């Protein structure tokens, strides 16, 4: 029956990676767990607090608000970037030098470091020297992101769309390129409309890359830190303070290591849950595909 030799020696090859991950992730994470159940004032002055920090963090209205803003931000980003990315990918030239040129132009925002993106937009939106801020003021709009929460939100979303839609567009572009020409020929024979081609050929073939795009964009936006920190500093008030910034203020600004450790663990668990759901979905889709191919 099964005459394959079982050999587990390949696991030894994973060891170096395991050691690396232990040093960079597992041991620090264990330390965070230890911090989350204590009030540590120094290595020899620490008090066991049990689950107190967790219940404080879970009932903190400021964190509830930050969590709400974070979810809202991620959903808005996805609702704009995914359709926009698909649209851009459909409009991009398919071959020749134009294709390469457009690809490079579109990818440029992805190459800029996060905090530089924040600085660029900070200057871009200033009323006195920034092109966008100055123009909006000149045409009579009361635009000021340090005073109006809605202006701050509008700018952060615009910035993120500018920075990250290219990623979605590139993923979709590669997905579109992998559709065999035969599908389009069949569609032409059937005199399918452009919409029908999109709905019944392109969109179904894009499902896999779209799941990856949604996962990446969700993770990025859920952990966003540098760009809003540089652009608005979380203000006006706390209207653009997202989760990671609340965490940094707590951990580094106020040195509340216990509560911020508890908060980090909750944050980590939420991200772990979402990633697992996405990962399982992707794996499941591939499995379905394989079983279809085999049948």
């Amino acid at each position, binding site marked *: 029956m099964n005459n394959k030799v079982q050999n587990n020696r390949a696991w030894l090859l994973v060891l170096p990676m395991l050691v690396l991950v232990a040093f960079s992730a597992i041991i620090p994470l264990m330390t965070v*767990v230890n911090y989350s159940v204590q009030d*540590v004032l120094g290595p020899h002055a620490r008090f066991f607090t049990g*689950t107190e920090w967790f219940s404080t963090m*879970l009932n903190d209205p400021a964190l509830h608000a930050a969590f709400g803003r974070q979810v809202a931000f991620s959903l808005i980003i996805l609702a704009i970037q995914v359709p926009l990315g698909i649209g851009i990918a459909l409009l991009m030239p398919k071959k020749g030098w134009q294709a390469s040129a457009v690809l490079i132009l579109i990818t440029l925002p992805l190459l800029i470091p996060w905090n530089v993106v924040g600085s660029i937009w900070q200057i871009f939106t200033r009323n006195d020297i920034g092109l966008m801020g100055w123009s909006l003021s000149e045409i009579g709009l009361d635009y000021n992101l340090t005073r109006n929460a809605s202006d701050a939100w509008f700018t952060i979303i615009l910035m993120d769309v500018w920075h990250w839609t290219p990623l979605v567009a590139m993923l979709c572009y590669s997905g579109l390129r992998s559709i065999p020409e035969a599908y389009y020929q069949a569609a032409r024979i059937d005199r399918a409309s452009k919409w029908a081609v999109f709905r019944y050929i392109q969109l179904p073939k894009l499902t896999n890359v779209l799941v990856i795009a949604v996962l990446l964009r969700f993770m990025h936006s859920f952990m966003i830190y540098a760009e809003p920190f540089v652009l608005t500093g979380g203000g006006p008030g706390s209207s653009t303070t997202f989760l990671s910034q609340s965490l940094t203020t707590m951990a580094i600004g106020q040195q509340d290591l216990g509560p911020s450790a508890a908060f980090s663990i909750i944050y980590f*668990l939420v991200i*772990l*849950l979402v990633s697992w759901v996405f990962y399982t979905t992707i794996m*499941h889709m591939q499995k379905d595909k394989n079983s279809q191919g085999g049948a």
Partner: protein
Amino acid sequence: MTWMVWTLPTAIFFSSIAAMLAGMTIWELRSPTVERKGFLPISTTRGDRLFVSLLSAAFIHLGIIGFTTFPLLVASALSVLWLLILMRWG
């Protein structure tokens, strides 16, 4: 190890996770897992079910700590019960 500020409860917590992983390894060597579909919407292996039950145990504990006044043992008991149900019928 001082810098890791260990406490007895967290040490017990991590030791039991390590013991679970070791136990799962031995179990897998003795009788390899068969992927099957239970009441969960996806087909799972033994390890998948353990992961799902550990992750839900974390959220059960957070829910009980944050939003009720029940003692922590209630959360742990619920988690163990959920783990057994998942491992058997999940």
